[in-house]
C-alpha cells in the first residue's frame, strides 16, 4: 500500500507540470505579443544576439556535416570517374566552341553596355555563403546562412544562385544570417514576364511553388515563359531569373499563373549575397545633398 506522502507526490506532480506549462505558455504569449508590432521585418536585437552566440556551434557541426557528405560524394564519384572523364572531355570541346562564339558576342555587347545607363540596376555580388540549415514549417521557408555583419551583410540583402533568385536576408548576426526564401508564404517580389514585359507580383505559396499575381486576362503569357525580377520592389535588383510559367488559368480579374522556381531550392548548398537594392549612398553624400 502507498504511504500518504507517496500519494501526495503522485497527485502533486501533474499539477506542478500543469502550472509550469501555464507559466511557459503565458511567457511565450507575452514574448510573442512584445514582438508582434515589428511584424518580423528585421527581427529583434535578442534574435541577433542568439544568432551570434549560436554561430560557433552551428558552424562546427555544419562543417562536420559537409565534410561527411563531401567524403561520401567523393567515394561515390571514384566509381564513375572514367565515364565522367570521357564525358567531360567531350563537354570541354563543346565549351571551347561556345567560348569562341561567346567572346565575339561579349566584344559586341561590351560596346553596347557602355552606352546603357542601367549600371545602378545591375546586381553586385558581396560574397558567397554556405546554407547551414533550411527550415520548411507551416508555410515558413527560411534558411540559415554562414555569413553575417562581419562580412558587411545586413538585413534586406538579396540572395541568388546562378540559376535564379533565392530570397533575402532578414536578420544578420556577426557570422550567421537568417534569410527568408522566395517560396515563403509571406514572401513577395516585383516580377516581369521576360517575353511580354508585363509586370506583376510573385508570391511564395509556402508549398514549394510561386504564384504570379496581377497579370491581366488580356496578357499573352504562356507556359514556359521566363519570369524575372522587375526591380520595382526596392529589394531585388532587375533581371534575375525567378522561374518559368508552369500553368495559366483564367481568374475573375487577373490570370492565375503558377510559376516553378528556377533556383534549386531543395538542393541549395551555397548562395550568392547581393548588395542591398537600391544601393545605399555612401555616408555623408546624401546628407550633403
Amino acid at each position, binding site marked *: 500500500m502507498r504511504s500518504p506522502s507517496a500519494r501526495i507526490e503522485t497527485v502533486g506532480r501533474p499539477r506542478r507540470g*500543469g502550472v*509550469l506549462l501555464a507559466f511557459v505558455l503565458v511567457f511565450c504569449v507575452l514574448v*510573442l505579443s512584445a514582438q508582434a508590432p515589428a511584424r518580423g521585418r528585421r527581427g529583434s536585437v535578442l534574435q541577433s544576439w542568439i544568432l551570434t552566440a549560436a554561430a560557433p556551434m552551428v558552424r562546427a557541426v*555544419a562543417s562536420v556535416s559537409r565534410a561527411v557528405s563531401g567524403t561520401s560524394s567523393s567515394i561515390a564519384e571514384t566509381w564513375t570517374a572514367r565515364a565522367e572523364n570521357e564525358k567531360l572531355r567531350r563537354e570541354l570541346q563543346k565549351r571551347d566552341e561556345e567560348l569562341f562564339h561567346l567572346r565575339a558576342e561579349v566584344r559586341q555587347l561590351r560596346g553596347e553596355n557602355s552606352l546603357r545607363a542601367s549600371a545602378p540596376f545591375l546586381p553586385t555580388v558581396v560574397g558567397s555563403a554556405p546554407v547551414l540549415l533550411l527550415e520548411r514549417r*507551416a508555410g*515558413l521557408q527560411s534558411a540559415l546562412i554562414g555569413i553575417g555583419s562581419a562580412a558587411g551583410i545586413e538585413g534586406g540583402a538579396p540572395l541568388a544562385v546562378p540559376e535564379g533568385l533565392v530570397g533575402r536576408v532578414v536578420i544578420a548576426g556577426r557570422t550567421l544570417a537568417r534569410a527568408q526564401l522566395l517560396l515563403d508564404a509571406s514572401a513577395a517580389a516585383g516580377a516581369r514576364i521576360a517575353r511580354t514585359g508585363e509586370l506583376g507580383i510573385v508570391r511564395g505559396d509556402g508549398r514549394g511553388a510561386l504564384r504570379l499575381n496581377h497579370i491581366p486576362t488580356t496578357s499573352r503569357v504562356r507556359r514556359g515563359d521566363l519570369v524575372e525580377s522587375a526591380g520595382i520592389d526596392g529589394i531585388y535588383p532587375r533581371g534575375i531569373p525567378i522561374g518559368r510559367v508552369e500553368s495559366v488559368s483564367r481568374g475573375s480579374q487577373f490570370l492565375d499563373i503558377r510559376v516553378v522556381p528556377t533556383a534549386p531550392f531543395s538542393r541549395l548548398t551555397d548562395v550568392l549575397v547581393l548588395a542591398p537594392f537600391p544601393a545605399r549612398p555612401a555616408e555623408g553624400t546624401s546628407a550633403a545633398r
Partner: protein
Amino acid sequence: MKLGPIALVLAGATALEFFFGGSKFRGAWPVDWLLVGTAVVARWGGSGRAVLTGAAAGFLEDALTENLLGLNAFAKAAIGYLLAFASVRIIFGGALAVGGVIALCSLANDAIVAVLRFLLLNSPIVLGTPDALWRAVATGATAGALEAAWSFPWREWREKRRQRRLR
C-alpha cells in the same frame, strides 16, 4: 531524469538538427530532432521537465529560423506536456504507437505554429504539405526506431547468442 542528461539530449538534438540540416541530403529524411529530444525527456523526465525542454528547444528553433521568438516554444512546450501526460499509455502500445504519436505531434507542432503565425503575422495558413507529411513520417519512424532499440532486450539477446556460439 536529471538536468545534466536533459542538457545532453538538447545539445545532441541541436547538433543532429544542424548536422542533417547543413547536408545537401537534408530533404531525404527530414527528422525534427528537437521534437524527438522533447519526447525523450517527456518519456523519462516528467511533465515539468518536458515543458521546459520543449520551450528551450522551441526558443532555439525560433531564434534560428522564425520571424518571431516563441512560436515553436509555445508549440513544443504544450506538446512536451501532453507527451509526458500520455507517455505511460503510449509506451505500452510499443514502438509503433510511439512512432504514430510522435508523427501526429510533428503535424500538431506545424498546426500550432501556423495558427500563431496567422494570428500574429497574418501569414496564410499552410498545412498538410508533402514536406510536412514527409517530416512527420521521418520523425515518427525515427522515434519509433529509438523506442524499439531502447525496449529491445539486448542483454538476453547477447546471452542467447553467446550460448549458441558455445554449443
